[in-house]
């Protein structure tokens, strides 16, 4: 048995253990894969799938954990789609207003130039 070297104190483990995502990333995805007598394909349980299942399984629980990303994903949420449309509308209105302002400004400047020339 070799235990050369003192290990530094653990990092990122304070307050109720390591981040669940860090643990799941390792125990599901990494580590040596051995087919046991009980065959479960862990690839079926990738992180993305877990998140998607959350949406279906327990919205409240997920919200408690602040996993409410789908509310902002237009693919998944009608509200997000609506908000995206509203946002696009707002941006288009802003751009239109800006273009109109620009046009008005240019008209004004051209007008002023004209007047200056007229004045001469």
């Amino acid at each position, binding site marked *: *048995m*070799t*235990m*050369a*070297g*003192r*290990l*530094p104190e*653990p*990092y*990122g*483990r304070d307050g109720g*253990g*390591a*981040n*669940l*995502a*860090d*643990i*799941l*990333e*390792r*125990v*599901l*995805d*990494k*580590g*040596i*894969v*051995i087919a*046991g*007598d*009980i*065959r*479960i394909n*862990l690839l*079926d*349980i990738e*992180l993305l799938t*877990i*998140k998607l*299942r*959350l949406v279906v*399984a*327990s919205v409240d*629980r997920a919200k408690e*954990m*602040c*996993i*409410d*990303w789908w509310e902002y994903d237009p693919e998944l949420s009608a509200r997000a789609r609506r908000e995206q449309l509203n946002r696009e509308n707002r941006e288009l209105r*802003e751009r239109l207003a*800006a*273009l*109109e*302002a*620009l*046009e*008005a*400004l240019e008209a004004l400047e051209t007008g002023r130039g004209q007047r200056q020339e007229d004045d001469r």
Partner: protein
Amino acid sequence: MTAQAGLRYVYAVCRPFEAALQSQLTGVAGAPPGLLRHHGLVAVVSKVPEGDFAEEPLRDHLEDLDWLAATARAHQGVIDALTTVTTPLPLGLATVFRDDSGVRVMMEAREADFRHTLDRLEGRVEWGVKLYADPPEQESPPAGKPASGRDYLRQRRNRTHEYEEKRRAAEEFARTLHERLSRRAEDSRLHPPQNAALSGVPGQNLLNAAYLVARADSEEFVELVDRTKDEATGMRVELTGPWAAYSFSEPAQSRESP
């Protein structure tokens, strides 16, 4: 039911070690892990009830995030305890056999592999380093309405430009950070960035890497990471570990390209 009732959950394979495991240690399903010696290797095993770990209930359970989280933490707890006394070769979650002889058969079939990998990992641990971009400040409302259309367009262009600059700087920092840390590690793996929604950590995850470092060099490695924390502006460097060498338990050909 006989004394053998229940399935066998295998956490890790190690070389024999003398130190005792913590007496309070419990594994998944609350049972204390024991050691099963075979051909000069040791499997760390605990009994788990068929009602939870037979194929069908297990598949159902794995879809239950609470159950999955508790089981993953218990699995990691045992691996963590092993890491303090030896160099374990961690197995993936839910590696389950019908009985002890099933575990022995598996150990025999994989013996050469195990020995080779254990030699490669001996005396080494894994450190996780993640780099996050600080979440953008609440979009600062432009000071008053733009005075003109030109103003508006200029402000907009500046904002886009600033954002691009920040992104480029962050990517460059992530690249140099990984290069510097790789030079001080024996091996490294790049993992896909974590989704902020799942990890609950604010800010975009720009780098998610694992480094294989000898125990003896770990203190120095940690100091190096600490120093880089001061250099990151608008970004955050996060260190986790020491982990058992999860990310390095498969041979190098499965290595992801950086």
